[in-house]
């Protein structure tokens, strides 16, 4: 399949089951909600070493938030429920409780409830106050700027992590420009996050390593500088490969995000140095969810 001069490989991205949750951070204004959200989702690019994958889903207008203030929806994905709960609590405690004017609410209905502010309340040292409003339990924790208001729990649901595609270009700037365009388009899709820095991964990995201590290592088949010394998957004109990783609540959410992302890359086309779209395919070793590129773009 070729779109605007860009070859879409007949391959698929492999993804795996994860657990996910969403939280809403509000603040006096969007600036401070975003600062808190960025802190909370920092260092959460890959479960390989971060414990979770997290990202900002979108900015919320005041009429979309529980307390009528500007807000940001963030999502956190982890391999299991316990890990997710721990990451959520740790990050909320360090990055939202501490952030000026912030409040923290559940962003997902249903699923299994996991603690959001349920244990953070103990920071109140006995001065915390519970309030049940509209059937939901909230905690008011006295803090130095006033009160930190937080919902007790949020929902944890089954989700899919690791959807991806690779952008193969004639140069590094061209690959990056294409990925930036893809991310801008994909940000409009609900229920997904692209957890890597700016949504783009330059260090795509394969499963396993020659070093026993590592579970993943550089994807040498897609490293342009190794074209002559390994079993490469690159043609001579490819100088740079970048990856976009997508976590979503459902396979369909990731389908939608991949479609608009790949389309944005293809809109730049071969004229801008984009030659191929491929995907992280690990021979079925990584996970049960398969995203066939040509089917998605059909």
């Amino acid at each position: 399949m070729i779109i605007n001069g860009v070859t879409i490989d007949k391959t698929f991205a492999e993804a795996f089951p994860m657990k996910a949750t969403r939280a809403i951070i509000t603040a006096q204004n969007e600036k401070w909600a975003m600062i808190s959200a960025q802190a909370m989702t920092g260092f959460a690019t890959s479960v390989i070493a971060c414990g979770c994958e997290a990202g900002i889903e979108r900015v919320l207008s005041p009429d979309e938030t529980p307390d009528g203030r500007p807000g940001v929806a963030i999502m956190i994905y982890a391999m299991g429920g316990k890990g997710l709960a721990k990451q959520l609590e740790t990050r909320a405690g360090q990055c939202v409780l501490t952030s000026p004017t912030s409040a923290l609410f559940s962003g997902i209905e249903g699923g299994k409830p996991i603690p959001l502010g349920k244990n953070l309340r103990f920071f109140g040292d006995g001065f915390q106050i519970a309030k049940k409003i509209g059937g939901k339990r909230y905690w008011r924790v006295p803090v130095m700027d006033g009160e930190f208001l937080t919902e007790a729990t949020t929902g944890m649901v089954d989700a899919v992590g690791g959807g991806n595609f690779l952008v193969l270009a004639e140069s590094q700037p061209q690959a990056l420009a294409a990925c930036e365009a893809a991310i801008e388009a994909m940000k409009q899709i609900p229920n997904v996050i692209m957890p890597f820095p700016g949504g783009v991964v330059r260090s795509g990995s394969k499963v396993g390593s020659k070093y026993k201590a590592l579970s993943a290592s550089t994807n040498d088949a897609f490293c342009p500088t190794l074209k002559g010394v390994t079993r490469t998957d690159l043609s001579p004109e490819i100088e740079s490969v970048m990856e976009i990783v997508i976590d979503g609540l459902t396979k369909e959410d990731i389908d939608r995000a991949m479609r608009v992302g790949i389309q944005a890359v293809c809109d730049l086309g071969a004229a801008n140095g984009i030659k191929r779209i491929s995907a992280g395919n690990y021979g079925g070793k990584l996970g049960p969810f398969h995203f066939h590129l040509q089917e998605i773009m059909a």
Partner: protein
Amino acid sequence: MTSLTFTLIETPPSQRIDMSPLVCQKLAGLSLDQIAGIELQCGKQKLRVDQLFHITGSNADDISIVGSTGKLDLIGKELASGNISVQGEAGAYLGMQMKGGTINVIGDVGLYAGCEMKNGLIQIEGDAGDFLGGALPGNKQGMKGGTILVKGNVGQRAGDHMRRGQILVEGNAGDYCGSRMVAGTIAVMGQVGRYAGYAMRRGTLLLWNQPQLPATFNDCGLHTLAFLPMLFASFKSLNSRFADKAIAFNRVRRFGGDMAEAGRGEVLVKL
């Protein structure tokens, strides 16, 4: 199906009547004849329902009590679901230990309305007596959940020993409002009497007017509290002045107390 309606024959009845058998879950599936044969305690004698009421209708999930007086006690006791509508006054212990559903009263109600209720909604168009949402004498926990809305005034000791839930009063409250509260919220739009919050451990008294507080409450200053707009927003489905967006506020003077007790309670007064 039409509401199952009980119309009082003798108004007022000669003795107080225990209405606790006439709740939705106990009448579900019974024929009118079976309902007519239920015996109610009336003073020191037991009388059949049809000796006291005309019975019409069939929907046991929607009960109406017509021509009600202050001598009908224990209306809606342990109500689990459904709706009870009271046309007139109600006696003591309205909605006692209620678990769910709705009770609407057009007139005034007596002592201990909503006492020890666990969930559901009680709406009272008139006034309520003492110990609204309180604990039965000798018990340590009053209302444990749900909402009581009173459009008139309430008597003394509203929310005594209250554990959870909310009491909303459009009118005035008597002395000792929120006394010995363990937790929960009492909101009073009118005036409150003396000793508001007496011996409260936790919980919130939300007041529109400055009360005369016991000396064991301390001023915590002026504050903008984020939970208040959410609390007011949760009232929007009520048929009440509490549902009016214009009455909402988030700026209060906060008093902490009762310092003679745990001291974790608060009295929030609108600025």
